[in-house]
């Protein structure tokens, strides 16, 4: 029973991280109809930057802020330089472009920081809470993770629903040509969307790094699982991404706890295939596919 509770709580905190990665993918898919396969590598880079800042300044908060800021900048640069030329090309070109970015960023990180994974500090204690006589696996740092992700999800909801920037961004995503006819600078909105998404991913990177360690390839499984979570949520629905992330976090936590962690990527694959076979556009997808 304690094990089940442990796995459930663990599922919620890892699910929060998957949700953040899924959110990053969904933000980009909504606005550009591109799955950003480079997301895992982008958040790896920003986490390395955070690590360098934390090591030299000793301040976790500063590292966190720098990670978010560098995520914004990296996302904007990637959109402007690499993604814009393939935005109107066939979908395959964008897939190859983002995979190329992934490959390049992983190699660059390996050149600068080496391929041996290193440790990354956590914001709060990694010792589980004590309830009565039992020690739970859930830690203060997990609480921090869940709260940060909730805060970001709420902030994004407010941005999209309550601000004129959000209105512009939604218009640019839903109907780019009409949005342009209404004076919306659609290109700028796409850049903002990529920047926000990359910052969201950067946050996920800093949150997950203490448990997976920090290396050029450390975040590959997170990207795959984030993609599965995003697809579970329908790829274009931010609330769906959050639900998908938590559901997947729980499912994979049970698989890992009862069957062994080696099966986690495979279980994610099985869940993805089942979801796609039932509904090829994801479970919570509200709008219909626009591209045939």
């Amino acid at each position, binding site marked *: 029973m304690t094990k089940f509770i442990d796995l459930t709580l663990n599922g919620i905190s890892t699910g929060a991280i998957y949700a953040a990665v899924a959110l990053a993918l969904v933000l980009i*898919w909504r606005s550009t109809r*591109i*799955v950003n*396969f480079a997301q895992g590598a982008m958040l790896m880079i920003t986490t390395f930057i955070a690590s360098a800042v934390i090591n030299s300044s000793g301040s976790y908060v500063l590292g966190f802020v720098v990670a978010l800021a560098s995520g914004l900048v990296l996302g904007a640069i990637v959109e402007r330089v*690499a993604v814009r*030329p*393939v935005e*109107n*090309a*066939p*979908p*395959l*070109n*964008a*897939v*190859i*472009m983002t*995979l*190329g*970015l*992934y*490959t*390049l*960023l*992983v*190699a*660059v990180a*390996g*050149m*600068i*920081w*080496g*391929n041996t994974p290193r440790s990354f500090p956590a914001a709060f204690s990694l010792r589980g809470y004590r309830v009565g006589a039992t020690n739970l696996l859930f830690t203060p740092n997990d609480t921090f993770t869940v709260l940060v992700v909730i805060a970001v999800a709420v902030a994004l909801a407010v941005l999209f629903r309550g601000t004129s920037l959000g209105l512009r961004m939604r218009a640019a995503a839903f109907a780019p040509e009409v949005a342009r006819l209404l004076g919306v600078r659609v290109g700028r909105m796409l850049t903002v969307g990529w920047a926000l998404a990359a910052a969201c991913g950067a946050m996920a990177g800093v949150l997950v790094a203490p448990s997976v360690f920090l290396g*050029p*390839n450390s975040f*590959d*499984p997170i990207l*795959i699982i984030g*993609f*599965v979570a995003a*697809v579970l949520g329908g790829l274009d629905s931010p609330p769906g991404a959050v639900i998908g992330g938590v559901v997947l976090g729980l499912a994979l936590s049970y698989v890992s706890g009862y069957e*062994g962690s*080696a*099966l*986690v*990527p*495979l279980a*994610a*694959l099985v869940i*993805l*295939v089942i979801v*796609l*076979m039932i509904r*090829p*556009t994801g479970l919570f997808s509200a709008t219909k596919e626009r*591209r*045939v």
Partner: protein
Amino acid sequence: MTSKLVGVFRGSTLLRSLAIVLVAGVVLIVVTDSVSSYRNLQIAYGAYYFCVLAGLTVLAGASGQISLGQGAFMAVGGYTFAKLNASPVGWSVFPSLSGAVAASILIGIPVGVAASRLRGPYLAGATLAFAVGLPALADKFPAFFGGENGLIVNPPIAPPWLGANFQLERWEAWVACAGALVVVFVLYNLTHSAVGRSWRAVRDGEIAASLSGLRVGRQQALAFTISASCAGLGGGLLAAVTQVASPGAFPLQLSLTLLAGVVIGGLGSLAGAVWGAALLVFLPNWTTDIAGSFSLSSNVSHNLPIAVYGLVLIVAMLVWPSGIQGGVRVIKRGAGSAIRSRRGRGSAEPATAASEATEPIADEEMNASHP
């Protein structure tokens, strides 16, 4: 007389493909005889890369699908080969390779059926998950798959009639090239047959293809399974040549490297797969040399080839959406049309770019077979 003979060759795809295989075979025998054992090993590497790239390029170019899971199919082939070749079963090289192909077909069919329902990024993501997920099985069943260290494969033994002094590397090159030539023969005939035409019809318009009576899903599943079998053969050859099948031999990076190889060769072109395979073999050497001559650190030199693959993918998408072969074709078509297509891409007219990038195999090779 000669013209008649040429006519027969032109008319029959089968004869033409046999001629290509024969000529290539003779060339390879001569070449492997005259180069060092190190070069022979490189030829063997190139040959197994070619098998995988050829399967992938036909998948992408002919039927318009993409797979980022070819590394996983290579793992299927490699592990099957290692299992069949090792002591309890103890099959020799060629039966074990056939087993590797059979196993990858068995896995390829369900994956292909699932993949035929997916499009674009969904298909890419699912096959990517396949590439990450499948090799994890080796960790789950370490007793059977050898865990992290994988399975050791005995070096293939050259048959006695080739002489006692026949080099191991040369025999490995022969085995791998034999596999590559089988792939050439099969894929050449397939793409020039009714099956190939159905694939192109599916690629160019799924709805139109299904309206004219083609079972789109079945055609795509078939193309996917065939590309999986090529990857399985490539993986089996990899195990035979490198004498090991381990999870580390089939990382996610491998699948992306293969993608880079296919893109640089031009999606859909068998000749392009040769370019791609050559790149995958020689690039790590070149970058190591460059890193050595500039005395760069080992971190840099290890990662330089990967950086180049990434750049290749990025730059290809920026300037040459259909790869080297596609670029050659653009030049052939004449400067005028090239300029027109560039202008088409520059303005916000997606149609031109779309036809550019998905065109491949069709024109040139179709024209060759039906003059």
